């Protein structure tokens, strides 16, 4: 049998836990996996929420400090209680209207496609008191050294 061509690899750091910032790492990851690449995503700081069982279904969009909302929301209005819920509702509606997958659906696709490793940052877990059992099935706890070792073999590295 011919020696299999070494797979390309992409290593991504997902550092943000808002709904809008959860999409880019997962879109890149699923695209790469669809091309047969090896993918590793290191979920760190608030990015850990994306693989936190208690949070991944309810990520939010903050209108404050976000000048790119579909409807412009001045910061002074954005701080009113309930505005984050409104912004999140708007984004969810936009996602549904355009047939975009939800975050849980994208995570599910990474499993179906295979070749995607989801690393939970051990420091973040310690800092924020997130126990192992709060992370989604199939995720791995990793440190920066372990992720760097994985990333050192990657052709593409992204910080999101």
């Amino acid at each position: 049998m011919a020696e299999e061509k070494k797979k390309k690899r992409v290593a991504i750091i997902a550092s943000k836990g808002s709904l809008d910032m959860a999409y880019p790492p997962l879109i890149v990851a699923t695209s790469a996996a669809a091309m047969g690449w090896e993918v590793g995503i290191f979920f760190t700081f608030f990015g850990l929420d994306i693989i936190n069982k208690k949070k991944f279904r309810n990520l939010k969009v903050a209108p404050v400090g976000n000048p790119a909302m579909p409807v412009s929301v001045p910061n002074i209005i954005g701080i009113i209680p309930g505005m984050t819920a409104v912004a999140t509702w708007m984004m969810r509606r936009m996602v549904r209207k355009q047939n975009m997958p939800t975050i849980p659906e994208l995570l599910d696709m990474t499993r179906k496609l295979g070749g995607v490793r989801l690393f939970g940052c051990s420091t973040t877990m310690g800092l924020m008191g997130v126990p192992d059992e709060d992370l989604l099935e199939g995720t791995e706890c990793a440190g920066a050294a372990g992720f760097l070792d994985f990333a050192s073999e990657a052709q593409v590295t992204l910080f999101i």
Partner: protein
Amino acid sequence: MAKIAIDRELDTKGLLCPLPVVKSKLAIEEMDSGQVLRIEATDKASPGDFVAWCKETGNELLESGHEGDVFVFVIQKG
């Protein structure tokens, strides 16, 4: 030119990146080498994406064109 025999069709119309390539990958996994998949897409980036996808996956892009507003790709599994 002789018409290429299609073994499977995939409709990704109305879907945005990354779904056209993700669905194509999942569909082609269930096919045999040499079989032909025809994909319809409306995502504006899909012509470039399918060139890249075929290059990376070793599948062959036999045809890339459009019928009206719909992009059509004919891909043979490598």
